[in-house]
Each structure stands twice: as C-alpha cells, then as structure tokens.
C-alpha cells in the first residue's frame, strides 16, 4: 500500500484495502519472498554453524568417542575436572597466554612504527605499503614453510647472517626455549602489515592544523606524539588491540606446520590441542569441553569489542 496523503485524520492510500484479509495476504506474500531469499543462507548457517555450536556444548558433557559404533555417555562435569589435571592442556593454555603476551606489543608496536614512517614519507609510499601488506595476503602455510627454511639451524639464511656477524647459530624452532618466541616473531611479521594500514588511516584522519598549533605553542616532536597523536589514535588502537588479542588466542596453523606443537609441547596451543584430541585422537567429548571453555572466553572478548566499537560510533 502506498500512502498518497492525509484527509482530515485519515491516511489515504493509493490502493485502498478492499476486503478484510488483503493486508494479511500481502504480508504473507512478502514473507514467502523474504524467506526464499533468506533460505539458502539460513539453511547453511544452521547446518554448519548453529547446530555444530549447540552440539559442541552438548558433547562437552559426554564422553563421545568418534568411531564406528559411536560411544556416548553423559558424564557431567568430568571432562572439565579432567582438563585441569591434564598437563598438556595446562601447558597449551600457558603457551597460548605466552604467545598473546609477547605478540601483542611486538606486532602492534611494529605496525604503529611503520605507519608513522609511511605517514611522513610520501615518496615510494605505495611500494612500501604493498611490500608490508603482501605477507597479510599470503597463506599461513606458505609463510610457515618459508620461515621453516629461513630459520633452518644449519643451512638457513638467518643463521648464516648471524654467524657472519660473529653470533653463534641459534636452534630457533628446535629449542623448547626459543620455539614459541620464533613463532611470535613470524606471526607478528605477517600480521603487522594489516594493522599498519588501519593505523595509517587513523593517522591521516588527524587534521594537520592541530600539529601546527602545537608547534606554535612550542611542543617538540616527542610531546606532539604523546599529547596529540596517541590520544587521537585511541579508538583505532582499541580496535587493533582487541582484534589482535582475539586472533592471537586462535593460533593454530603456524605451530601445526612449523613445529607440530613441539619440541616437548613448547608450542602446543589450545586450539591445536582441540584439533589433536578431537580429530586425531577422536575424543570428541573431551575436545568439545576445551572448545566450550575456550570459545566462551573468546566470545566474551568479542562481545566487549563490539560494545566498544559501537560506543565509539555513537
């Protein structure tokens, strides 16, 4: 029905209702059309997202073991109690937290540094943007294999360069002490380019006259950075901080390809452990309890992030 005007207090329609029920019929028709358009997406989301999520929650309280025939018994909180007695799970949790704590300052620091450099230098900007951004587009597998060769203890280029400068060759991925830090470095190297672009957009939104005014007031470079750039970059920084946090929690491919969680479980992460227990060992119930515990934490962080972004918008 299309409104064409008002007569007194009544709305006048171009196609007035003739009978009772016409409105319902129109609404019914729109519903059919709308659900036809929604149908494929709803069906796929239901099958591969909603049902798996619900199943994960249910399996978390069972001892489901994937095999023919399937074994499944409700065990209550047993899985969760066992989790906190499982040394490999505790190790994977500690490793994941270690990764998060190391990668965040390194990656965000590098991204901000590169953005500040590129914001000043106008010449050759596009080249450096593309150069820093290209690792972001490359797959984690390609990057992991590539670094595997660069970091090779005997023939790798990095150790060749180190020994040239008189530093003894490092074991990198084969040492329990260095392996996680090496993965931190590779991950930061890959992810920094994307964040650099976001920081760059944030920097270019800061009006130039603010800096000019500050310069007239006698502020030096460092003061301008601390009192103007950093506060004005706050919304961008919050967004980058939380998305890096969420991404870091989900670390999986790099340790899987580069170290298989070793040496001595020093690079086993929580998501990799979910994959191993659930897929390789087929202990779906146990894996689901880890996934539920961990998924809840990541979900809550994501929720906080969405709230913060919304507030910045308002």
């Amino acid at each position, binding site marked *: 029905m299309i409104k064409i005007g008002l007569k007194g207090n009544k709305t006048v329609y171009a196609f007035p209702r003739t009978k009772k029920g016409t409105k319902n019929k129109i609404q019914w028709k729109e519903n059919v059309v*709308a659900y036809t*358009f929604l149908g*494929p*997406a709803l069906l796929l989301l239901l099958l591969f997202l909603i049902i798996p999520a619900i199943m994960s929650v249910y399996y978390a309280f069972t001892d489901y073991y994937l095999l023919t025939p399937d074994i499944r018994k409700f065990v209550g909180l047993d899985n969760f109690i066992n989790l906190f007695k499982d040394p490999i799970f505790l190790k994977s949790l500690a490793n994941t937290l270690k990764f998060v704590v190391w990668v965040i300052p390194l990656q965000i620091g590098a991204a901000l540094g590169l953005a500040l450099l590129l914001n000043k230098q106008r010449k050759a900007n596009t080249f450096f943007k593309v150069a820093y951004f290209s690792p972001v587009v490359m797959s984690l597998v390609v990057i992991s294999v590539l670094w595997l060769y660069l970091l090779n203890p005997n023939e790798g280029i990095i150790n060749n360069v180190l020994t040239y400068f008189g530093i003894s060759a490092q074991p990198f991925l084969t040492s329990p002490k260095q392996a996680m830090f090496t993965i931190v470095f590779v991950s930061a190297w890959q992810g920094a380019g994307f964040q650099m672009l976001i920081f760059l957009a944030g920097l270019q939104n800061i009006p130039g006259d603010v800096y000019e005014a500050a310069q007239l007031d006698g502020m030096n470079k460092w003061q301008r950075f601390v009192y103007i750039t950093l506060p004005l970059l706050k919304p961008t920084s919050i967004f980058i901080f939380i998305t890096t946090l969420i991404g870091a929690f989900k670390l999986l491919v790099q340790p899987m390809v580069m170290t298989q969680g070793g040496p001595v479980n020093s690079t086993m992460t929580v998501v990799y452990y979910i994959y191993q227990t659930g897929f390789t060992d087929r202990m779906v119930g146990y894996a689901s309890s880890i996934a539920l515990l961990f998924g809840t934490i990541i979900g809550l962080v994501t929720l906080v992030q969405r709230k913060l972004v919304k507030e910045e918008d308002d």
Partner: protein
Amino acid sequence: MNSIKAFLPSFHPSDWFISYKQVLSRFHLLGYIINSLFYGLCVAAGSVIINGMAGYAFAKLNFNGKRVLFGLLLALLIVPLETILISQFTIVHKLGLVDTRLAVILPALAGAFNIYLFRNFFMAIPAEIIESAKLDGANTWQIFLRIMLPMSKPAVATVGTLAFIGSWNDYIWPLMVLTDKSKFPIQVAITAINSTEPVYTNQVMAVLTISTIPLILIYIVAQRYILEGIGGSGTGIK
C-alpha cells in the same frame, strides 16, 4: 651460500624456470591448482549470491521474525569458528560428505559477517529506485540481480575477493575432510610436497611462488574495492 653469487639469478633466462619444470613433472601440481581454483571460484560466487540474497532480505524486505533473526545473526558473529571445527566435522561425517568436494565448499558459503556487510550496503540504496522498478513490473529477483548487486559493486568485490582468498588459503578444513589426494587444494599439497623425500628447497620455493601468484594478481585488481569495502564507513568494521 658463501658468496653473494648464490643469491643472484642466473644470467641465462632459460635457467630461471628449471625448478618450476622439475616440480611440475614430479607432482600433480596442475591438478592441485585447478582444485584450488575450483573451490575458490565456487565459494566466491556462492558467497556473493547466498549472502547477498540474505542481506537483501534484511535490508529491504519486511517479514515476520526479522528482528529475531537479525539478532541471531549478530550473535553468530561472536562464535569463534576455530572452536567448533570438531563438531562441524561430525556433521559433515554424518551427512556422508567426508572426502567430497562439497564438504570443502558448503561450509564456507554462508557467513554472518558477509550477510551483515551486504545488508549495510543495500540499506544505502534509496527506496525510490526500488519502488520505480516495481512500477515498471520488475519482481524481487530481478530487483536483486539488476539493481541491488550492480549498485553495490564494492560489497560484491569485497565479499567475492575475501571469500576467494579465504578459500584459497584455507588449510585446516580441507586437510580434515579430504583424504583423496586428487581432491587436495594447493595448500594441503604444499605440506605434502614439503615432506615427500627427497625435498629440494628450490622446488618447494617454486610451489610457494606458484601458490602465491593468484593472490597477488587478485589483490592488485581488487585492492581499491577491498579497501573501500573494508575501510568505508557504515560497514561495521574500522
């Protein structure tokens, strides 16, 4: 490795592609690339159509249950996909899809974020245009194909490209659902090639290069649209 010469390319251009020739003859690389292209194109085209249709319904159609479904959609954005991998696999297992190409494609098609992105782009299209198309006798399907999609090129390019890149780069999921080597995408093949003795560094590097070239090409072509799509205001990401 002891002289700078080791890092420089040969003076004979005919030497440049020896590694590529060797690796192509040793492995069914072409097959893996065709697999990856097939999965990527199916996922990209499917994502645009399926998520676009849903986005259109949320943006421009009135239906019962819209608010509830939209709330659900926003809630789905929070579910970390990595933690439901195992249950997704049991679903695919129960559907009897393990080791089929469909198992690689289907779960990657619908995405809450892509629906949300399309919906935001479609919201910006004025109602007058749709009304006049309706008066000219266009049905909802025609409006979607002839007006909504062409008017939202940045959204189509963003979703299509990101879906292709995501599918091309995906490793865990195809590794889980496929056992038949002839269906492997290039990413899964890379780790297999890297562990097939004897491993020649030059051949592995050739494979890595081959698998990266399509991404660089796509990125160069679609870069402007992607930045517009991701960085533009009103899309929900910043």
